[in-house]
């Protein structure tokens, strides 16, 4: 029996274009009710959305920190315009921990502590050690890596904390092209923010009606929802420090509580998965990547 689990919970950045009101209310509840240790905030997917969410952050940070959460600013995964690059530079000057999702940010943050986010290509222990040497304190590896591969990195790279993407639609690809705009016959520069209509992303089915992917502006995600529910001992043996829960519109406080019970050994994985399935997830449950298979594979029955 494992004693009180040392494994923490993190809430990842919101990938979707949520309104300022929705973001404010969401983080108020997280601050007050969710058993989460670390909260990543900020816009990661599309720089054009930043003017809408920027005003939300000061109050949100204060509220989250008052609630005892560590706040980490997450930065754009594909900064390109001068304004976007400037915003990355400004966020990297923050005294708090910052999450880097493109090596553009390393230019501004090298030598100071940062989180290496899941959009960086960290596929082996040598690359992980290189980034630790530049200041990486936490590494959340790309979602397509298996737990075994992450464990190999984590066991040979002691000085970094490893974080695993455990819950939410998987971020699979980024493009220079906006698929919401393309679908609506618009150009990216005059997109009318149609992505705001799809708070969990817009479902993409095959022409034979199979559920497959979801689009969120320039981002493509899985249709299915990662619900990685390991035995806590599996995480300990792989030197995993934290699980990351990626926000969807389901009750994320309930999701966080279920994961906390899992990590504390109060509920077994199958019970936690059943709890999650009752919350109205936007797709079937999967955990294939972490088990070493195709990402779309459903968890095997225990």
């Amino acid at each position, binding site marked *: 029996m494992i004693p009180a689990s040392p494994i923490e919970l993190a809430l990842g950045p919101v990938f979707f274009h949520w309104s300022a009101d929705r973001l404010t209310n969401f983080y108020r509840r997280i601050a007050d009710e969710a058993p989460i240790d670390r909260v990543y905030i900020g816009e990661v997917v599309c720089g054009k959305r930043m003017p809408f969410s920027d005003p939300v952050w000061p109050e949100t940070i204060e509220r989250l920190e008052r609630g005892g959460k560590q706040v980490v600013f997450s930065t754009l995964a594909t900064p390109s315009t001068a304004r976007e690059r400037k915003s990355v530079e400004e966020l990297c000057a923050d005294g708090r921990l910052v999450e880097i999702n493109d090596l553009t940010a390393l230019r501004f943050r090298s030598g100071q502590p940062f989180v290496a986010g899941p959009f960086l290509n960290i596929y082996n222990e040598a690359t992980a050690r290189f980034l630790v040497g530049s200041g990486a304190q936490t590494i959340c590896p790309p979602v397509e890596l298996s737990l075994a591969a992450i464990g190999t990195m984590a066991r040979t790279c002691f000085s970094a904390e490893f974080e695993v993407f455990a819950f939410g639609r998987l971020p699979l690809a980024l*493009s*220079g092209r906006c698929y919401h705009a393309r679908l609506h016959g618009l150009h990216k520069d005059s997109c009318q923010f149609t992505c705001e209509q799809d708070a969990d992303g817009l479902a993409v089915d095959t*022409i*034979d009606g199979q559920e497959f992917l979801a689009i969120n502006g320039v981002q493509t995600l*899985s249709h299915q929802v990662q619900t990685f529910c390991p035995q806590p001992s599996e995480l300990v043996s792989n030197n995993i420090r934290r699980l990351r829960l990626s926000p969807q519109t389901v009750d994320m406080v309930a999701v966080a509580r279920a994961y906390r019970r899992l990590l504390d050994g109060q509920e077994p994985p199958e019970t936690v998965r059943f709890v999650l399935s009752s919350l109205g997830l936007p797709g079937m449950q999967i955990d294939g990547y972490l088990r070493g298979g195709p990402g779309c594979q459903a968890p095997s029955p225990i």
Partner: protein
Amino acid sequence: MELVCPAGTPAALRAAVSAGADAIYCGFRDETNARNFPGLNFSAAELAEGVRFAHAHGARVLVAINTFAQTGRVGQWRKAVDEAAGCGADAVIAADLAVLDHVAKNHTGLRLHLSVQAAAATPEAIGFYVETFGVRRVVLPRILSVQEIAALNRSIDVETEAFVFGGLCVMVEGRCHLSSYATGRSPNLSGVCSPPEMVSYDEDEEGTAARLAGFTIDRYAPGQPTGYPTLCKGRFTAGEKTSYLFEDPVSLNAGNLISSLKAAGVTALKIEGRQRGKRYVTEVVRAFRKAVDAVEAGSDAGEIDRILSGMSEGGRQTAGAYRKTWR
């Protein structure tokens, strides 16, 4: 401008050199390169012979070791670099920080090119690679417009190489897991996208379904020619609309933008297609050789179009992001 041409086999290398390539890029027959398909690529002995042939004809050989090393097996990627250097390669093309670091520390005389798989698209990211590893050339992501490339070249001090012909990734290179989501194998994990062993063509009363690991990527009416089910080039349904959501089944042809790319400060033009045979390579390289020479000689756009229209390569083509239509 330098013309950089693909070689998936020793025969294709000789064909490309003979057709007028300034440089050839190729890879070893394993997961260290991003065209890890059965029947393709080079052994160390074949590479050494290819380098000898190329050098004898005044061409250079660039070796792509451009996948991300797997955990516990980084040594295999380092060994590939050592072998490329031993074979007399003129440069190594890499994306993984571990591989770049190995070249910079242990092969200081070897030219280092940053692979498109690193998707370095800002002056800051490129500056990081140049200052940290001494990268001499950056292969640009296929998501930039010509205007963006021109602006980028004004703010960096390193050679750039741009794709002008062949396959077109619509996703940011090195940031796409779509293939492994369906099949378990992807460019970053295994050097392949939409792997052939997961492809099936299933006949039913409506015609043929082209599938990847059971996911239908496209359908064809009876008698209609079928295409390869590359995941991002399929038809999908979103918001009650069925379309080529990510990209039409088109390939890149920026032949008529050669002079614009030159004006934008691009040093080298790259032709995609290490999976192609020597006849294709000969034809495409010969046409682009003529086109590049014509541009250098100051020919007008009509002359360039006439040269390139001689290519028999079928299928629909696009200038991709270069013309800024994605914006």
